[in-house]
């Protein structure tokens, strides 16, 4: 899930990839440390998101919660949510199978939408190649590191990530 190395933007070796983005937990903690600008409900939402990031393997659940909190708070804390968004983009991906029996593709995420269904659609579109057939596609969101650990072949997976 969250890389042990990812403590701050000063860590050039933050894995996976060469993430330069400030750790999402660090950003949330910074927001929580400013009670004058964080309301009670904001604090509840941020604590839920923090818990989810630290304790859950459920990438889709994390994305859903992030989207909900983002819709409510981003206009007041744009920079903080930009940092969390970029961190999530670097740490999550989607695995897509376009039709039963087809190859699994790994797709990088770009969190341009505040709704998981819209993100799912964008990831499906990114996985579609010319001539590909979309037949009962399946898509799962995963933490990058976890998916690499499961397959134990990060290099071949890295190479297959759809660039977009």
């Amino acid at each position, binding site marked *: 899930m969250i890389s042990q190395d990812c403590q701050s*933007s*000063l860590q050039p070796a933050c894995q996976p990839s060469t993430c*330069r*983005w400030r750790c999402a937990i660090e950003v949330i903690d910074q927001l929580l440390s400013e009670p004058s600008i964080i309301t009670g409900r904001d604090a509840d939402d941020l604590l839920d998101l923090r818990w989810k990031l630290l304790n859950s393997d459920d990438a889709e659940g994390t994305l859903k919660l992030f989207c909900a909190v983002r819709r409510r708070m981003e206009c007041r*804390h*744009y*920079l903080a949510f930009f940092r969390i968004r*970029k961190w999530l983009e670097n740490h999550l991906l989607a695995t897509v199978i376009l039709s039963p029996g087809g190859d699994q593709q790994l797709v990088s995420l770009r969190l341009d939408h505040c709704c998981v269904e819209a993100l799912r659609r964008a990831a499906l579109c990114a996985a579609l190649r010319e001539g590909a057939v979309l037949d009962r596609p399946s898509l799962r969101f995963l933490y990058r590191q976890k998916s690499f650990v499961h397959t134990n072949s990060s290099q071949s997976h890295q190479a297959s990530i759809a660039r977009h």
Partner: protein
Amino acid sequence: MSTATENASTVKLQAQVVESLNLVLADSYALMALTHFAHWNVEGEDFFPLHKAFQEQYENLFEAIDEIAERVRALNAYAMGGLATLAKAANMEELKAPSPQKDYVAALIVANEKVTEDALRTRELAGSANDLETQDLMIKRLQWHEKTLWMLKSYLKA
């Protein structure tokens, strides 16, 4: 400490200053390219003030790059160069177009913070090496980046 050991230590410190200064050079070059990109591609309600502000920023960076590179040469070393080399050293994420206005500003904040971190380290190293000229140059750059960060962050305030 013997004179030979002192000399070795000074040479090592000077090499660290040059290496760190070259990283600030790469950062500044990459930030200039990002800011230029934002200047070209920003669109929407605040187009005119952002377009103008980004222009002022990349013009300042262009002059700063020359000063930093010339300081490296004054230290009897060679300045880092070549787009690929500079981009690899700076390790900054590229911007995408189209993007919302606020994303350009937020991304430039992150990039300015990166330059600031590396300039701070260079200022400290130069101080340890008693290289006051490099330290002075870094202080000047830090003042500019901190002012720029204040302006960019003010834009994002709700």
